[in-house]
């Protein structure tokens, strides 16, 4: 499971979809609530954090002994404290991914399968992801190469088909309330970009290490492009009421009607969402499995795939008694929570490692 090698291009494709999977559906509404007319600018500002996180992940990978960030924690904090920190970080990922899964399941349930028990929707997805994880990241990367073009194509197709309905006047005037709301909205976008840090668990598998930075930056650029496109399309379609819908893109897809035959494209939205979430959950699932097996130096990481999956299933229900609680959490402290976990904490790690190396350098030069 740990040995399958991938190329940095494959990693970029996976991380591209990893960030985009839930954004296209959820982001337009959240950013509209915060930044109103200028919501389409938020990804452009947020992308700075995307570049930062990619750089951070690459630095961490380079600083880590044998490329394993768990080893870096152990060498910084001592073996036992390091393991504890690593477990804490993994628990944090557990939390984030279970919110994601819950999000996915709520979307499917509230829009398509009103009577299906949510545990079935989550369970089937986790079984598939667990299967992919057992087969190794190589397989996840390959499925990504098949699904991502399809997802991106259909997302863009929906946006293109919306063009006749769009009204650019919704966007004016620009920066009506000054830059503050845009910055506020971009923080939410940063919450999505920051998850790119998860690549640190996958970087050891990359074959062509020289291209990591190049493809990483292209990945962030691509994500920003799709985010801006979907934000623009949604806002030009419905204006500020985009903030009232939970899934504006799904609503947008209902607008499309060509020749009285080509209509009701919700199925496409669902396909995009399910395939995207499959990739997102698989990456998280893999990172968690790898993190645990690195922490405890497991010989056979395959053995913990099923238990981790079962745990994920439970955590999905532990994150909140109902989806309202989860939404309130995301809306209020979710952004700062995820930014602390995926930006501040890694920056600290990176800074500590650099400092230690600097001191070591001092020590050797003093001798």
């Amino acid at each position, binding site marked *: 499971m740990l040995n399958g090698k991938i190329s940095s291009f494959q990693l970029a494709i996976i991380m591209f979809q990893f960030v985009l999977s839930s954004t296209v559906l959820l982001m337009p509404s959240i950013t509209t609530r915060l930044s109103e007319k200028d919501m389409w600018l938020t990804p452009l500002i947020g992308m700075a954090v995307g570049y930062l996180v990619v750089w951070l992940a690459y630095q961490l990978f380079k600083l880590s002994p044998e490329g394993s960030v768990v080893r870096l924690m152990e060498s910084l904090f001592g073996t036992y404290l390091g393991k504890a920190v690593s477990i804490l970080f993994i628990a944090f990922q557990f939390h984030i991914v279970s919110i994601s899964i819950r999000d996915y399941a709520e979307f499917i349930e509230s829009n398509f399968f009103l009577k299906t028990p949510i545990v079935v929707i989550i369970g089937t997805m986790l079984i598939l992801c667990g299967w992919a994880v057992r087969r190794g990241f190589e397989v996840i990367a390959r*499925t990504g190469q098949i699904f991502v073009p399809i997802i991106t194509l259909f997302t863009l197709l929906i946006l293109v088909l919306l063009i006749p309905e769009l009204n650019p006047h919704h966007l004016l005037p620009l920066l009506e309330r000054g830059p503050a709301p845009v910055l506020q909205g971009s923080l939410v976008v940063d919450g999505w970009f920051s998850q790119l840090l998860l690549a640190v668990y996958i970087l050891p598998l990359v074959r062509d290490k020289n291209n990591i930075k190049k493809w990483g930056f292209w990945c962030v650029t691509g994500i920003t492009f799709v985010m801006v496109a979907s934000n623009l399309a949604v806002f030009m379609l419905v204006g500020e009421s985009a903030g009232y819908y939970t899934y504006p893109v799904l609503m947008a897809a209902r607008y499309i009607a060509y020749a009285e035959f080509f209509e009701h494209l919700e199925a496409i939205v669902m396909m995009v969402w*399910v395939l995207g979430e499959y990739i997102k959950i698989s990456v998280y699932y893999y990172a968690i499995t790898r993190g645990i097996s690195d922490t405890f130096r497991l010989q056979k990481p395959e053995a913990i795939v099923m238990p981790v999956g079962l745990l994920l299933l439970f955590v999905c229900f532990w994150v909140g008694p109902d989806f309202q609680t989860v939404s309130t959490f995301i809306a209020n402290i979710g952004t700062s929570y995820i930014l602390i976990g995926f930006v501040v904490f890694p920056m600290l790690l990176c800074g500590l490692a650099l400092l230690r190396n600097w001191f070591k350098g001092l020590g050797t030069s003093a001798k």
Partner: protein
Amino acid sequence: MNDHETPLAANIEESREKLKHFLHDCSDASMYHFRIGEQLPGMFVFFSGLTHEDRMDELRKEMAGWSFHEDNGSLQEQFQYRVAGVCSEEISSMEELVDHISSGSVILLVDGIDRGYAFSLAEWRKRAIEDPAAESVIRGPREGFTESMVDNRAMLRRRLRSQKLKMRGIEVGRLTKSHITIAYIEGLAAPELVKEVEDRIGMIEIDGVLESGTIEEYIEDEPYSPFPQMLCTERPDAAAAGLLEGRIVILTDNTPMALIAPVSLFSLLQSPEDYYERFLIATAIRWLRYSFFFIALLVPSGYVALLTYHHEMVPSALLLSIAKSRESIPFPALMEAFMMETMFEALREAGVRLPKQVGAAVSIVGALVIGQAATSAGLVSSPMVMVVAITGIASFLLPHYSVGISIRLLRFPMMLLAGIFGLLGLLMGIIGITIHLCSLRSFGLPYLSPIAPMMVGEWTDVVMRPPAWLPRKRPRLTKSGGSWRSKPGMHVSKLHRKQE
């Protein structure tokens, strides 16, 4: 000669008794007594039906005419001197004798010599080279492999007249001792691949190999997959094309089916005729095949999902007409689909197994039952009949039977998923199949290459059938991957332009 082997006797009467004991109950074993040069008693041993008996008779006549002079040494010595120029091999044990006669040789035993002389006069009744029955083409060579290994090898050699075409022989099967030939082109096929194939075949321990399917099952990478991981063909031109791409061809004795490995899913969706047809047309046909690959897999399950859970996604006019025809149907869509698809599979199987005369009757009755009677009796709706017919045709469109049948098999779990979870179930099924296909390998070659992992340079042969004059690089799986297969810029129109 090993210790546990039975030595031959010097005395001819003794040999006779020994042979009778050794070959007891082998009623097809024949012994033929005669005298060499009218003095030396000799005996031919062979299995009747495996040897060219006329030529054996000529040999006997010639030997009978040999004359021996007493001053030139003993009869045996003189005989040994003369026979050395005629026989193909000398043997010394009973086991060797049986080996030789079961592959068609004739063994000559002579009084006073404890050795046997083998003459390869193998000749048996075999089928002539015919049109390949399962893979017919409109344009292209009309000959197919036969059951004879010698003929099959010759057909390959005739297409690739180069010493670089290598054919390694292996014997598999404790009792059948079937000959397996591993053919490859030196310098094109990766040596590790050849060794891997040879090792895997060498590890087979089995009593008998009657068809290449046994070999395939033993050496494939993932035994539990519904998808074929080797291409099975009875067309020598397809085998030669595989060799030219750096693949390996495995010929098995007594079957016209050759195996080509490694393959990807896309090569299983290609037909050799693609390369003989004009490239634009062949490209269009390839796309037709790709789309029908998905139709065969997804149409029945999609229909079930839409009718069971997602009425709103069907355009209203279409929904109304479907609803009208389903008005009196007593079954839910899933059950209807299951019944009809199972019925279709049963008809297909019956049509394949039955003799040709009865087969026609089955298809007529089947068409009536499925098409006409069931709809007018109000048991099955007519859109369902169409769905079944379309998927049936779609699965027959795939050029290799083995892929078609795996798709047909996967259709059933897909229908079940669609019946339980609707479109979500369908998506789950698609994700599951994709995960499986992505983790599948055929002798190290990822099954979905060059799409995943992506090798853009090799896409030309997937998204289109590239024109022959288009400069193309060799596939990366080969030893000389990346070198040019055809010289760049060599189309006639360009050459003319240069001359002007």
